[in-house]
Every structure is written in C-alpha cells, then in structure tokens.
C-alpha cells in the first residue's frame, strides 16, 4: 500500500481535492444558515467559465479569479433571493440553476469563442504554482503541498477561518442560530433573511473559486460540463460532515485520494471507464457506512425528511 503513495500521487490528490473542498465549504456555509445548496455543480461550472473569460480578456490569472467570483456571485443571486425572499423550493431552484449553468456556459462558449466542446487558447493565463522548496522534501504532506496554486492554500486556510468564525465568534453564533432556530434568531434581533442572502452570496464566491481552480489550476482549458460531478461530491461531503467544515475537509480528502488513486490505477493499465467511477463508489460507500451508524442511533428519518421537497418539513421555516 505504501508504495502507492508517491510524490506524484500526493500532488495530484491535493490538486484534485481543492475544487471539491472549496465547493464543500460553500455548501457548509449555506447549510449552516438553513439553505440546502445542491447547486454547487452549477456554481463550479459558472466559476470555471467566468475564470476562463476573465483570464482570456484581462490577460491575467488574477483577472480570471476576479471575474469568476463576480460571475458566480451574480449567478448565486437566484438561490440567495429565490430561496429566501421569494420562498421558492431550494431543491427545485438548485436543479434549475445546475441546468442553466450547463446550458448557459455551452451557449456562451459557442457565441463568445465560436467553439463547442473544449476551449483552449494561448491567451488564457493559468494560475501560477507556488513552489516551496523547503517543504517539498517533507514526505507525504510536503509532496502534496510543495507545488500548488494559491487557491489550494486559500482553500485550506478557509477551512480554519470558517471553523473559527462558525464556532468561536458572535457572528458564527448568529449564523448558526439563523439555520437552527430562525424564529429565535429573529426574536433576538437578527435579520434572518439578510444573513441568509449574504451567506449564500459569500458561498457563491467560494464556489466560484472552486471553478477557477478547475479551469485555471491545471491545464487552462474550459470544456462543457467540466465540473463532472464534483459539485455533487461536495454536496455529499457536506452531508457526511453535517455542515462541519473540518469534517467536510476530511471527507474531501477521502474523495480526493480516491480520485488520484483512480488516475494511478489508470496508469497501471486499468481501463479509465472503470477507474473514473472510483470517487463515486467511495462516496456511496462512505454514505452507507456513516448512515448505517446513524440510523442505529435513530436520527436518520428527520434528516431524510429535510432532504425531500414537499416532505414533512418545509425547507424554509421563514419568519415574517
């Protein structure tokens, strides 16, 4: 088993984890304020496309990141207002957003760049890799982080920041209150809607970074539907972690390794159709294992109802 962990594997694992981790953190924030966000897939895709647009027209990776943030925040307005002020069903809105992202990026790809499928151009500036020679020599961890983009570092920093903000600050207390007991939070003078809207938009910006990492972090291309299920894996990570950023990061590490391992197995000669499904199989296995323990504790049914639209619990117990 140990000879499987090579510097290359570690590097590709950390690289594969970054977009999923950023998206999962976005999902955690939304979940904490009581908005079940399954639009991560679409948000990543919009972020990836906007990053390419920004990088292409502004000629810098920073420009790409900026456009990715703006684009995804604008896109996330639909969820932010649709699920709060307009009281739409977040699940339906998110499904609509995912399809809109897929259609809109494909449409704009044809209209703006005149290509379908994949767009690559020398004018697209990719993200620089930060090389830190000192840690590159440290086995395992150092191999992984020796040569990564700024977004990877930012993602892991964000895990710590979000954990501290959520559990150690008054702001975090209010955020959690908005999600867990919106009526109580409202009674204490917290503007529930405003907190939800702003949090969903901040989460949108983070999901946009996930997209930027995806399109600019490795090969600087955009291809249709390039998010390829990463947003859904992030949704699972959020569910497994029960909206805890640290656990979500742990889940993402697991999926990232499954992903990197599948690439590794591919180089060992296994057909890619089979190795590609490794992350999903690991995800399903993780769901089965964790939920089996939970259902013994007898808490699964309430969560199940919450994830079912039109079920027993209204997704938005709004206070007005």
């Amino acid at each position, binding site marked *: 088993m140990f000879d499987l962990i090579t510097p290359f594997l570690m590097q590709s694992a950390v690289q594969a984890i970054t977009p999923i981790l950023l998206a999962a953190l976005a999902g955690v924030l939304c979940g904490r304020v009581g908005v079940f966000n399954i639009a991560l897939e679409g948000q990543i895709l919009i972020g990836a496309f906007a990053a390419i647009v920004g990088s292409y027209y502004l000629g810098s990776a920073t420009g790409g990141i900026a456009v990715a943030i703006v684009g995804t925040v604008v896109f996330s307005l639909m969820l932010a207002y649709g699920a709060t002020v307009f009281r739409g069903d977040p699940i339906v809105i998110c499904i609509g957003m995912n399809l809109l992202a897929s259609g809109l990026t494909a449409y704009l790809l044809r209209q703006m760049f005149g290509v379908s499928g994949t767009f690559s151009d020398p004018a697209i500036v990719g993200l620089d890799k930060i090389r830190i020679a000192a840690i590159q020599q440290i086995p395992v961890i150092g191999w992984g982080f020796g040569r990564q983009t700024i977004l990877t570092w930012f993602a892991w920093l964000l895990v710590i920041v979000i954990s501290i903000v959520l559990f150690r600050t008054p702001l975090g207390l209010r955020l959690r209150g908005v999600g867990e007991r919106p009526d109580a939070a409202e009674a204490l003078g917290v503007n529930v809607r405003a907190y939800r809207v702003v949090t969903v938009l901040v989460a949108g910006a983070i999901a946009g970074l996930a997209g930027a990492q995806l399109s600019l972090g490795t090969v600087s291309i955009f291809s249709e539907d390039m998010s390829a299920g990463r947003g859904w894996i992030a949704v699972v990570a959020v569910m497994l972690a029960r909206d805890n950023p640290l656990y979500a990061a742990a889940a993402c590490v697991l999926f990232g390794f499954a992903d990197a391992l599948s690439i590794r197995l591919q180089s060992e000669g296994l057909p890619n159709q089979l190795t590609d499904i490794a992350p999903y199989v690991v995800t399903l296995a993780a769901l089965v294992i964790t939920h089996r323990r939970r*259902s013994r504790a007898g808490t699964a049914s309430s969560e199940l109802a919450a994830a079912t639209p039109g079920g027993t619990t209204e997704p938005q117990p709004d206070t007005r």
Partner: protein
Amino acid sequence: MSVAPSAGKSARRLRLPPVATAILLGIVIGGILVFVSGANPATAYYEILVGSLSPDSLPNTLNWAVPLVGMTLVAAIPLRGGMINLGGDGQMVIGGLVAALVPLYLPAPGPVLIIAAFAAAAICAGLYAALAAWGETRHGIPMLISSLLLSYPAIGVASYIVGFPLRDVHTGLAQTEMIPEGARLVVLTGALNVGVLLIAAIAALVVFFDRRTVVGYELRMRGSNVRFAGYGGVRLDRQAIRVMFVSGAIAGIVGAIVVLGSQFRFTDGALLTPAYTWSGLMAALLANGEPIGAICGGLFFAALQTGGFAMQRETAVPRVLTIVLQSIIILFLAVRHGMQRR
C-alpha cells in the same frame, strides 16, 4: 423584508397563470440573450416554431418526444409522492444496454426477443432504481443524492462493457454489434416506430393509476403530507421502493425504445448526449409531478428542442439556447410557486 410584500401584491394584481408567466418570461430573457449575442430573436423563435410544429417537422418532434416524455414520467411519478429520482441517466443506460444485449445473445425468434428485451430492460433498470429507495428506507441515505450517485457507476460499467468485452470490433466506436433485424421495432411512418405507441400507452396507464386507483391516491397523499400518509396506513417504505422500481423500469423501457427503435445498438454516450433525463425532470417539475401537466410539459420541451435544431441550421444561434430557456422557465416557476405559498 420590505421587498417581499410589494412583490406579493403585484403578483396578486396580475393574476396570470404561473406556468404561462414563467414561459413568457423565459422567452423574453432568452430573446434578450439571443439579441445580445447579435442575432434576431424573432427569427430564432420563428425557426423554432416552424422547425417543430410545421407538418414536415411534426413527426420529428414526436420522435424526439418519445424518450423525453418517457423520462418526464420517470421523474413525475416519484415527484407526485414528494420524492426525486435524479438517477434517470443510469437507469436509462442500464435499460438500453440490456435491451441491446438480449437480442444479441439470446437465441430466440424476433418477437420473443423484443418482449424479452423490454422485460429485462425494465426489470434491471427498475431494480437499480429501487436500490436507491432501499438505501433511503433501510439506511437513511437521502434518495435525492444516492439516485444520482448510483448513476455514475452504472454509466461507467456500461461504458466499459461496450468498450472492451462486448465491443463490436469492426467499428472504431465503443458500441455493441447491430441487433438482428427481427428484434427491431416496427416502423410506423418515416421516423416514427411503435415506441411512440408504447410511451403513449404507458402515459395513459400512469394517468389512470394516478386518478383512479388506490395506489395513485396513496402516492398523492404522500406528496401532500408524508406523515399524514403514514398515519393513514400507507406503508411508506414499501411504497417508496415500489414507486422507484416503476420509475426506473420506465427509464429502462425508454432506453430500450431508443436502442431497439432507432439506434439498433448500444453506443457509449449516445443515450445521454440529448440529456432526456434532465429535460424530463424539468417538465415534471413544471407540473409538480401531476402526470397530464408533466406530459404536456414534456411535449412542449420536445417541440422546443426539435425546433432548436432548425434554429441552429437556419440562424447562427446554437440550439443549446433551448436548454437555457427550459431552465429559466423552471427557475421562474419555482419562485412563483414559493410566492403563492405564503
């Protein structure tokens, strides 16, 4: 806080049916998108209309509607009970693959092959869908996510099977060999085959069960209030598994119709490229799972997409615009439903 009441008041004043409003808004926003990208929206919409509803193109629309309406029913049946099946892609692929393999490897005469292929496709896809429901009832894994996640392994394994062990080595693509002539669906006229009748029959059955039977009543009851249905004596676990089996079985039949009726082989990716599952889900969401409304939605989206081909041919506007239109319509409708709920 201040925005919401005024928005609610204006909605009450307008009193437009929500679906019509959503479609109108979708068309307006789509038109703006076309205009911004330098084409004439009126021409684009005219081409969609002619390309879908003129006598020449109507059979094409119907042909496109067969899998789309089928996948609409796949989504609508669980939605009627407040459940969402996101795994239609995987279920359809299983159905398509099984329907291609049965005639290729079962020594039997043509008509028997067709029936066996449909039965096997429906059962395999139905069981796979029921697996997601079983995961929810037995282990508490939300079906919303498990149905989708189960899709990926199904697609991957199917892709492997036709890419390696059972590949037609005479072609460059990952696909099975052609199925024998006798096992192909009878052509009615031009592009249309018996599949259209089969889907119509299934649609009629779904509507009948929804309106006239205890099963349908219990499912609607679950959709209105799960707890009430449970107290009323509906065995929720068993119901969820059965509903998902039926939903998956229809997805399998849709895959089989495409394979036996028009492609005559299972080609990797060919069932998924048109994104029938997602369009079907949106059509079902349009009507909130009510079968007749969902079927109308499916027909509408089929017309839109068929017209999209004509639009792409006649103007420079890519046909993926129709997907954008569909999602805008759903988004507006979700918001409108929410506003009415207050």
